[in-house]
Structure formats: structure tokens, C-alpha cells
């Protein structure tokens, strides 16, 4: 079925099924999948949430809860069928020959045991090392995964490590017994993009150096493109496309793969039109569609799709399989099957005479105090936002991007007066914003939050949620009219009026985010502050929401302040982009200009760290990889705040924080070495 030489096969999974028996039915979370992993190979399993990718990984390790029923023709690991071995044999394999790295570094380590204790555990269990040997090996391992001063770190506890450092420890645990296979389940999803790059590089480097095979579970196509040799694309518990990574990215053959690839905004392409979207939602696995599971969402679906398609060779390549009856059509017309309409961004020139929002020298300081000695407290100031100035014009989208802790959310909250700014001036529509006047402009300034799960009151129906602001602001007084208005709003955001009777938990994540947008729209605002509105959503749903936001802007002329950490998403939606680091603006400019010609070393590094979903481009990129982690905001570096991580730092940089200076048309960067770096 695939082209790995028999003697090089490390893991051979044949017809794996995983079922969960629940009270109200059986869910088949993994449905008859087969795949192989070669020795030293890097396999990616990619798919959206709920497609069964994590369950696949956990079932290989037999780490699923008791209600899971695993069956397979065979799961051969190095020739031995591990689906038949006893639990005690399985335990001997775990951590010894197959190890696993999990998604959440913050919760995957035991908080009450030292790092050293947790690291030596597999060594003592499997290799029967003495305490002393194990300690020596542990120090070596910590050094290998890039943890400074490993001797000191051994006696520390997980809470004394940052997220990135904890994930390094997890990798060290995984490597401890020199396994043949590491299964990494979304190992970098919870981390910032620069840290993600560090961790993935480390994993790749170590696996190729030690000849360890890796199964990487991820939803991020960029990560797949950058690292994987082979790919399994999963949809609704089945593998829909399988094979060589280059081949699949070059000639995707399953309509789902094509849709997935086309719905991701691309950082390397100029800002274009709408994103392709896959309509609808993944099926409920309690009652999946008959035949091809992608049929209800597939633009090519026909009568044949009532049968279950099997994986078949594509393009005459043995190492490329897809399960679809229309692969010829799909791969030929791949670029057009999802393009419903080609309307572009609002082409209307943005009128730059009267800014809608002016932020001038905004400061948001938080004073914190913490216990430092016996009975003494030390207090410090965190400058979450430090002298940030920008304007937003009507109908314009300004993107605010940066890693966690850079102050981007604080900017949004200060504008909304959810936190009271400690300095600077803000003007909205020529009204000076302060705690008194903010009530006057509340209606015109709305917000969409990140988490569509917790930002809607679970005890109110969608109708009540949307009705409340209409009542509070006396916008629509007549109950009958209010009903109509709510129906209009729901239709506008792509929901149905009958959904007003539903409660938030009855909607999917994407639908809830649409309710959040409808709630903001009900005020007919001039500006919406979007705080990470799509980061909790799957790729195909994310594209739907981004398109919706763009359509609404074109139609209603709303301005957005779009706060996000995903550079590609920000690039896609924004006219102007601001890059922040430790409370300060590092660079800002028109989107296309900034992305094609980043001037600040931080902007460059940030872009280099974000992988592009194209193996050809990705593997030829010359990258600046940032060292270290975000410094403590309590104790920022002297001079330029970025100096502690910058590759081009000199003594002059540590003297004072550079001012923003012009470096192009409406393009500014805060770095003293702009000219030097441009020629470099």
C-alpha cells in the first residue's frame, strides 16, 4: 500500500478502529485507518479538531480511557504486533521505545515533583540505571534540549519553568531512553510562534541526528510543510489522503485537502481576495453521513459519493493515495473548485482626512507587588503598554500583532476603557475619550472577544443575548421591531433566525463567534475591536469568519482594530499592521509593504518563525531564529527592549530605546540600525 521498504518499516498500522461507547450511542472516533512509519521518518497527521488524530496517537500507546475500544488487524511495531501484547509488555514499550510529547506543557508535568525526579523516572524504570547514572544522563539530556545550567534546574519544580522550557523538558523525557518513535501531539499549539520555531527545530534536529521517527499530530499546515516527510490527512475519523509531503502539497487530490490548503491565509502571497472556504461543519461522529463523509461539504459531490471511497494511487505515484471518486477533477481544477465569488477587498480608497480613532502615547502601567523576603514586599511596575500611538480611519482595518505578553490586548482594553489607561490621550470621532465621555461613544465602539465559548452567557438564549444591547441603548423600542432586527442580524452573520431560541452550548464554536459578531453589529458601530477573534477556531471555520468580517466591512464601512498573534491572518485582513514587543511598537506600515519588506529585526524574526504551508518555499527559506524567550516585563532590558534577543545587537542598542523613524511610505520602525540592516 505504500512504498516504504519492508525492512525499513518501523510502525505498520492496519485497519485501526477506535470506538467510544457512550450512554447515548457509540462514537467511532477512528474508522478503519492504515498507515506506516519508516525508521527515522517524520510523519504528520493533520486534520481539524475532532477528526480523530489525537485518538489515533493515544490508541497506539494504549493511553485512552477505559471506555475506548481499540481493535486492529495489526499494529506492528518493529515486527511485533503490539495490538496483541499484554498490558505489562505494553508498559515496557512506553517511554522506552515509543514516547509521547503532549500539547499542554503547562499541565503535562507533575507540579509537586522536581524536574530531575520526573526525568529520571523512565531511566530508573526501563534502563535500571543507578541513581547516580540517571542523574548524569538527565543533566546530559537537559543540555541537549537547550536548557541552560541543567545541574541547577534538576532540583527545581515545573512552575519555575516557562511554557517553552517545560516543553523542552517534555522532549527530554521523551528522549530519555533513546526511543525509536516519538509521538508528538500538537507539541507547539500552546506556544508563541518564535518559541514554536525553537521547539520544532530542536525536535527535527534531534530526530534526524539520533534517527528517531516522529509522528507529529497537528492542525497547522505550515508546520507540516516545514518538517514532514509524509502526511496523513484525516477527516471525520478516516484518512482521506496519504503520502509524500511534497507530492501532497504540490498536487493535492482530495477536495478536503485542497479546501484546507486554500482556506489558510498565506503570508508569502500579496493581499488578495476572499479566502476559499469549505461550507458547513464537520459531521457529528455519532451519526456520520453514509458513504463519503466529506460529501455534504464537498463542491464536487455526486451520486457516486454515497459509496465509501477507498484510498487509491494518484498521479501514478505509489506514494500518494486519496480516497475520493473525483480526484481527477479535483486535482485538475483544484484552484477553482472553491472559488464561489472573486470579490476582493473593499477597493474604495480609505479617506485619510478624519481619523476615527486617535491613540496618542497610550500608557497602561500595572503596579504589582510580590513577596520577596520574610515580611517584605517588593513592588514593581509592568509597562504593559508604553507610549503607543496610531490612528484608525473609517473603513480601515488596523492589525495589531505580537507574541503573548506584548501588550496588544491591553491596548484594546484601554481603548474600550475596560482598564483605565495610566497615560496618553485617545480620541474617538473627535471626542476626547475619558471615563465620562466613553459612555457617549460606547455604541459606536464594539468588541468581539477571543473565546466564543466563555464570552456568551450560557443561561441566555441567542435571541436574549442579541436583544439586551438593543434594549439597554434604547435603539429599538418596539418589541416587534426588535424581533425583526434580531432576525436581520442573524441572517447578516450567516445564521438562521430560528437559532434565536437556542442556547450558546447548542452552537458550534464558529457559530458562537458569529453570534459575537452579530452582538457587536447590533449597535451599528463605526469601530469593532476584534481581540483574537479566530484563534480558537479550526482553519476552515476561521476562513468563514474572516470572510464574514471582510464582507461586513465592505458593506457597512466598519473599521476594525484586529488584534491577533497569527501573522498570516493579520496580513490577510489588515490594511495597516502594527508589530508590538514588550509594550512598544517595533514597526508599522501598510500590510503588503511591511510583509514584503520588514525592516525591524523583530518583525523579520517573527515572520521567519511562522511556517508557510508550502514545502518548496519553506525548506528554502533563510531564517533568523530568535534566541531565548520574552524577558520578564517587570525587568525589561535596558535601552531597546528587544536588545536581549536581537541578533544584531550592539552597545548602542542598550543605551536607549530607539524612536520610530520613517523608512518608507507610511512605514516606520524603531531600530537604530535600519540602514545597516537593509544593505546586509
Amino acid at each position, binding site marked *: 500500500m505504500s512504498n516504504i521498504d519492508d525492512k525499513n518499516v518501523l510502525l505498520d498500522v492496519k485497519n485501526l478502529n477506535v470506538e467510544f461507547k457512550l450512554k447515548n450511542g457509540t462514537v467511532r472516533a477512528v474508522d478503519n485507518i492504515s498507515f506506516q512509519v519508516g525508521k527515522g521518518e517524520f510523519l504528520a497527521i493533520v486534520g481539524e479538531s475532532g477528526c480523530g488524530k489525537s485518538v489515533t496517537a493515544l490508541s497506539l500507546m494504549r*493511553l485512552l480511557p477505559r471506555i475506548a475500544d481499540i481493535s486492529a488487524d495489526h499494529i506492528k511495531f518493529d515486527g511485533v504486533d503490539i495490538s496483541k501484547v499484554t498490558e505489562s509488555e505494553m508498559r515496557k514499550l512506553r517511554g522506552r521505545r515509543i514516547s509521547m510529547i503532549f500539547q499542554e506543557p503547562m*499541565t503535562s508535568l507533575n507540579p*509537586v515533583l*522536581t524536574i530531575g525526579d520526573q526525568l529520571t*523516572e523512565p531511566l530508573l524504570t526501563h534502563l535500571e540505571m543507578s541513581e547516580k547514572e540517571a542523574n548524569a544522563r538527565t543533566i546530559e539530556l537537559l543540555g541537549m534540549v537547550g536548557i541552560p545550567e541543567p545541574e541547577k534546574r534538576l532540583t527545581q*519544580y515545573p512552575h519555575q519553568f516557562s511554557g517553552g522550557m517545560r516543553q523542552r523538558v517534555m522532549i527530554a523525557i521523551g528522549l530519555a531512553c533513546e526511543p525509536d518513535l516519538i509521538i508528538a501531539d500538537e507539541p507547539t499549539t500552546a506556544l508563541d510562534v518564535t518559541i514554536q520555531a525553537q521547539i520544532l527545530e530542536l525536535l527535527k534536529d534531534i530526530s534526524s541526528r539520533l534517527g528517531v521517527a516522529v509522528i507529529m499530530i497537528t492542525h497547522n499546515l505550515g508546520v507540516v510543510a516545514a518538517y514532514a516527510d509524509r502526511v496523513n490527512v484525516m477527516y471525520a475519523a478516516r484518512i482521506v489522503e496519504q503520502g509524500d509531503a511534497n507530492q501532497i502539497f504540490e498536487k493535492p487530490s482530495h477536495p478536503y485537502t485542497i479546501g484546507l490548503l486554500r482556506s489558510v491565509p498565506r503570508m508569502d502571497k500579496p493581499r488578495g481576495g476572499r479566502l476559499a472556504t469549505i461550507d458547513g461543519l464537520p459531521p457529528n461522529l455519532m451519526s456520520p453521513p453514509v458513504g463519503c463523509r466529506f460529501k455534504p461539504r464537498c463542491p464536487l459531490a455526486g451520486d457516486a459519493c454515497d459509496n465509501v471511497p477507498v484510498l487509491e494511487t494518484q498521479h501514478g505515484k505509489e506514494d500518494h493515495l486519496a480516497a475520493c471518486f473525483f480526484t481527477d477533477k479535483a486535482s485538475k481544477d483544484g484552484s477553482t473548485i472553491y472559488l464561489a465569488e472573486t470579490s476582493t477587498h473593499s477597493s474604495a480608497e480609505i479617506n485619510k482626512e478624519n481619523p476615527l480613532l486617535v491613540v496618542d502615547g497610550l500608557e497602561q502601567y500595572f503596579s504589582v507587588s510580590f513577596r520577596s523576603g520574610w515580611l517584605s514586599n517588593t513592588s514593581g511596575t509592568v509597562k504593559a503598554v508604553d507610549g503607543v500611538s496610531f490612528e484608525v480611519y473609517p473603513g480601515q482595518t488596523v492589525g495589531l500583532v505580537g507574541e503573548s505578553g506584548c501588550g496588544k490586548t491591553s491596548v484594546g482594553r484601554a481603548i474600550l476603557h475596560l482598564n483605565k489607561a495610566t497615560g496618553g490621550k485617545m480620541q474617538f470621532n473627535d471626542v476626547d475619550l475619558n471615563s465620562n465621555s466613553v459612555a457617549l461613544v460606547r455604541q459606536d465602539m464594539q468588541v468581539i472577544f477571543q473565546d466564543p465559548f466563555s464570552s456568551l452567557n450560557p443561561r441566555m438564549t441567542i435571541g436574549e443575548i442579541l436583544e439586551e444591547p438593543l434594549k439597554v441603548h434604547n435603539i429599538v423600542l418596539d418589541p416587534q421591531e426588535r424581533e425583526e432586527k434580531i432576525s436581520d442580524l442573524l441572517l447578516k452573520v450567516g445564521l438562521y433566525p430560528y437559532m434565536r431560541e437556542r442556547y450558546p452550548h447548542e452552537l458550534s464554536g464558529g457559530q458562537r463567534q458569529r453570534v459575537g459578531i452579530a452582538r457587536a453589529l447590533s449597535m451599528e458601530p463605526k469601530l469593532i475591536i476584534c481581540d483574537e477573534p479566530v484563534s480558537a477556531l479550526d482553519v476552515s471555520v476561521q476562513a468563514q469568519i474572516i470572510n464574514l468580517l471582510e464582507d461586513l466591512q465592505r458593506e457597512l464601512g466598519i473599521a476594525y482594530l484586529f488584534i491577533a498573534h497569527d501573522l498570516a491572518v493579520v496580513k490577510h485582513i489588515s490594511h495597516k499592521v502594527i508589530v508590538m514587543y514588550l509594550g512598544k511598537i517595533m514597526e508599522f506600515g501598510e500590510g503588503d509593504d511591511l510583509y514584503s519588506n520588514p525592516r525591524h529585526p523583530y518583525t523579520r524574526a517573527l515572520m521567519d518563525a511562522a511556517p508557510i504551508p508550502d514545502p518548496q518555499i519553506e525548506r528554502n527559506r533563510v531564517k533568523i531564529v530568535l534566541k531565548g524567550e520574552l524577558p520578564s516585563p517587570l525587568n525589561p532590558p535596558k535601552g531597546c527592549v528587544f536588545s536581549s534577543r536581537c541578533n544584531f545587537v550592539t552597545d548602542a542598542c542598550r543605551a536607549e530605546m530607539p524612536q520610530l523613524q520613517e523608512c518608507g511610505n507610511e512605514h516606520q520602525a524603531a531600530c537604530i540600525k535600519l540602514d545597516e540592516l537593509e544593505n546586509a
Partner: protein
Amino acid sequence: MLSYAIRRILLTIPTLIAVAVLVFFVLRVVPGDIVEIKLTAEGGMVSEEEIMSEKERLGLNDPIMVQFYKYMIGLPQGDLGISLWTENNVSSEIAARIGLSFELAVLSTVLAVLIAFPLGTLSALFRGSILDYVIRLLTIGGIAVPSFWLGMLIIMMLLATVGKLPPLGTVGLLEDPLTNLYQLIWPALSVGYRYSSVTARMLRSSILEVLSEDYIRTARAKGVFERIVIVKHGMRNALLPTVTVIGLEFAFLLGGLVVTESVFNLNGIGKLFVDSVVRNDLNLLQGLVLTVATGFVLINLIVDLLYAALDPRIRYQK
């Protein structure tokens, strides 16, 4: 750790002072007059003058702030004043009886923990089994049944089976440990049942919670033996909330002692408590409340220190 411990110990001082002040004033609000009760106890009429002179003698006619001053000055020297009824030193009255109550409290706690840990752990590990349901039934019973009633049931059981009760008149622990244990185990059981039930239920739910944590999955993925996964990775984390409950429930235990000592006719501070309330003996009462409160504060100090020993996040809190 050391600095945490010292900070925590120093913090008990203001707590105890606050308790002392509160006890003094709250008790003076309670209506009733000991002198009248005392003098009329033997029957017959007592004249107004007699009551007044008796009050004068006992210092009850002093302005309240003067009484408060004397009381607060006495405290650091261990002087709790004199019992208004027996006119013995309050501290010696308490000292005579506290040993028995202390022993009973310790025995109940030990018994409770010894029962709770296996029950809670088994119940969690065999969740949903018959065993789990039986344990949960037993422990919900422990919360529902008042300790004095259980005490009476135990007495009836002893009468029905052995045919006699443990000998009256307490035997010292050092004189005859076995008889002492035989005497005290029954009251300890009757107050300890609730204690163990609450603890077992807490332990059950925290073990269940801990076993679904990510780090347990990590431990299993390392190929660690299941026994070690549960004991080393699971139990220590599950103990944290359980230890808190043990500390809080100690207050219920002290309350239970008051009644249980009466039921089993043990001459401990619980019984003294009841007597002093009936006689309106303010000085003795405030001495007793203060003693019990101190015990409670100390137990919670131990719990906090234990907590720090178990959880490094507290130990290293800056």
C-alpha cells in the same frame, strides 16, 4: 520553606489575640447571672445585699474595661482567672481535664484518617463498582448521623453484645494502656465516623480529579508502573485538598467532643463546657473557648505547614 513556616507561625499570634478579645466581649453579651444561680442553688431566698456583696467579692462589679484589662494582662502569664463557681484557677480546672480530651481528639483523628484513606482510595480506583457504591453509602451515612446518636447506638450495642459498658472512671494512658484504649475507642469512633466520612469523600473526588490530569497521562506514557503512577503521581496531588478538609473538619470534631463526652460520661473539657454553660461561669467558659480556639488554630497551622511540604508552589511562593 523555613521563611514560609516562620511567617505562618508568627501569623498565629494576632489571630489568637483577636480570638481572646472576641471571646471576652461576646460572652458578656450573654444574659444570666452566675451569682444568682449559685446562691439560689441551695434553695431559699437570697437578699439583694448578699448578691451585691458576692458580686463585689468576685470582681463582677468592676467596669467592663477594667475586667477586660485584668483578663488581657493575665493571658500572657497563663492566668485565665478563677472559676466563678468552684473558685479554683480556670487554668488548673482545664489542665485537669484536657489530657483526656486531647487523647480522644487525637484518637478520633487517627481513627478517621486510618478509615478514610483506604476507603477513599478504593472508592476512586474502583469507581462505579459495587464496592464504590457501598463505600459511598457508608460515608454519606457518616455525614448524616449525628455523633451523639451514634454514641448511644454504640452503648446499646456494647450492652447487647458484651453485656457491660467500659469501666467508669478513666484510667490513665500510662497506667493501663489497654483499658484506656478500650474506654476511649468507642467515643472516638462515634465522633471520628463523620470525620472519616468527609475525608474519604474528599479523597475520592480529588483522586478522581487528579487521575484525569495531563501529568498522569505523561507518567503513564513514560511506562511507569501503574502502582507508582497512583501513589507517587496521584496521591500526593490528591492529598492537598484532603488535608485542607482534615483541618476544617477538626472544628466539627471539637463540637462533637462536647456532646460525646456527655453521652459516654467522660470527664473531659467537653463535659466541663456543658457544666460551665449551665452555671453561667463566664471565666471558665472564656478559658475553655480560648483553649479550644487555640487548638483549632494550631491544627490549621499544622495543615498549612503540611500543605507547604506537599506543594512546592506554596513553598517557593515569593
